[in-house]
């Protein structure tokens, strides 16, 4: 075909706002030259629900539940960070058992969240059988949550001053049994993702972000660790009981889609080990302070390592039951910008895989 001067060489196509990778609304305006992506414009705000405003209309106790419902996959990290901020203001130290129980809740959620993302990767590469298999293995973690916490997604584990659930001998035994079932399956999945040629062909060298680029956009979580940045809130600023546990931080150098998936899978394996350690070290005693503690006037920042990366909460109170301001910075917000680098030089067909590889949580980001 001869070049027509009337037709621009670069054309713009819309991707989204629905069905990019997950069924979450993200809208991309992508400039393409043939099959190659030359530029990207990310448009956000399709599911803005005004949750930050709602937190200023509800009491501290009610906000623990409200923040849990911002997002489903990191539904434990939000209330955990919120109560940590409240405890910082009130100067509360939670009982030791509660600290360990918080770690258990967080790590169970991390296992389920990472397996979900890795399963979707298989789905996007068109490998439906692997997708079904990983989702089936994830079901062990879902059953664990339902049996121990009472819900498949919203654990309702957190309260200001501790946790709301307790583990008895029967539940501990059940959890250990479930972890024993989960571990060999996860090891087999890791091996598959390492060796399967369908997965490798679609993910190696795709959506690459270099270490300095990742630092420049402030990438966090598995996206940063896959680009070689050794940063994990659980290690650099330990909260709950993480200072009493060994927290391995896997890093890879390539910064491609495959590395990010592998980081998630390694973290699943590490989380299983940490859960076992927690159950072994779990001290006795109270699980919370019993009362609804008064939160005095003050300001605090708290952060935790959500499955997607560093989650930061800012809380300002004025001594009343209703907080004056709650603000949070979610990991997906930082990782969105990394997409600009990842899309550079990629093909249209890889867009969905690259978007999925940052594990975007749009409901957190746009709240």
């Amino acid at each position, binding site marked *: 075909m001869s070049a027509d001067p009337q037709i621009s060489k670069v054309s713009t196509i819309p991707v989204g706002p629905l069905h990019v990778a997950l069924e979450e609304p993200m809208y991309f305006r992508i400039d393409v030259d043939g099959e190659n992506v030359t530029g990207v414009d990310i448009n956000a705000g399709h599911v803005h629900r005004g949750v930050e405003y709602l937190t200023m209309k*509800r*009491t501290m*106790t*009610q906000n623990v*539940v409200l923040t849990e419902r911002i997002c489903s996959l990191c539904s434990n990290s939000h209330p955990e960070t919120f109560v940590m901020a409240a405890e910082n203001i009130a100067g509360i130290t939670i009982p030791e058992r509660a600290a360990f129980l918080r770690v258990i809740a967080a790590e169970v959620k991390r296992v389920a969240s990472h397996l979900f993302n890795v399963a979707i990767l298989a789905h996007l590469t068109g490998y439906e059988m692997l997708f079904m298999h990983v989702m*089936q293995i994830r079901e062990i973690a879902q059953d664990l949550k339902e*049996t121990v916490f009472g819900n498949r997604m919203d654990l309702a584990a957190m*309260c200001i001053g501790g946790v*709301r659930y307790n583990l008895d001998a029967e539940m501990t035994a059940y959890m250990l049994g479930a972890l024993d079932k989960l571990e060999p399956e996860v090891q087999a999945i890791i091996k598959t993702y390492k060796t399967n040629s369908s997965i490798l062909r679609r993910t190696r060298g795709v959506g690459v972000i270099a270490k300095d680029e990742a630092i420049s956009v402030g990438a966090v979580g598995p996206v940063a660790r896959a680009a070689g940045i050794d940063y994990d809130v659980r290690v650099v600023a330990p909260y709950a009981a993480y200072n009493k546990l060994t927290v391995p931080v896997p890093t890879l150098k390539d910064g491609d889609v495959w590395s990010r998936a592998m980081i998630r899978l390694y973290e699943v394996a590490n989380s299983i080990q940490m859960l076992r350690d927690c159950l072994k070290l779990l001290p006795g005693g109270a699980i919370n302070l019993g009362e609804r503690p008064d939160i005095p006037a003050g300001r605090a920042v708290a952060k935790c390592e959500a499955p997607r990366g560093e989650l930061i909460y800012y809380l300002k109170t004025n001594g009343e039951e209703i907080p004056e301001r709650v603000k949070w910075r979610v990991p997906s917000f930082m990782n969105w910008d990394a997409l600009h680098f990842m899309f550079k030089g990629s093909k249209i067909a890889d867009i969905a895989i690259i978007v999925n590889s940052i594990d975007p949580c749009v409901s957190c980001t746009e709240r």
Partner: protein
Amino acid sequence: MNFLSLFARNLRRGPYTEAFPFGPAKTPEHLRARITFDPKQCEGCRLCEKVCPAGAIRFTRTPGGMTFDCWHATCVFCGTCEFYCPTKAVKQSNDWHLAHAQGEKYAQVEHGLIPNQICVECGAKALDTAPAVSHIKPPLSAEEVTELRARCPKCRNKYLRSRKTS
């Protein structure tokens, strides 16, 4: 992972999905589902109403006493009410069968009445709530709790004061 062996394993095991509604669905004991209310145990402190993030719980003063209503369609199953209830009058059962016909949607309510009673000491009309006794030392005996319960709030305070001094 050898997918042929996985295939054989899945073939042997059969479907992972549950046969519900044609068969039983596994329900864990601790599942957080439908709220239940026992008016006999309620202290009438209305803390559950205050902490409920969804505003599903409402207490209303009626000529007959005080009613408790929890709207299942509004409830988010967070369990905050049960957690803060001092006597566990509000509980979360593991009954998740909440599907209903459209016509019944306004009947999806857990309803309870804390009736009025006549105080045995002063004859005033007061709510027949469970007395708040968990913090009282030394602990009250079962007879003392029954005696305390039959009184109005004022006479309850009087009863406890006289118990302290005697």
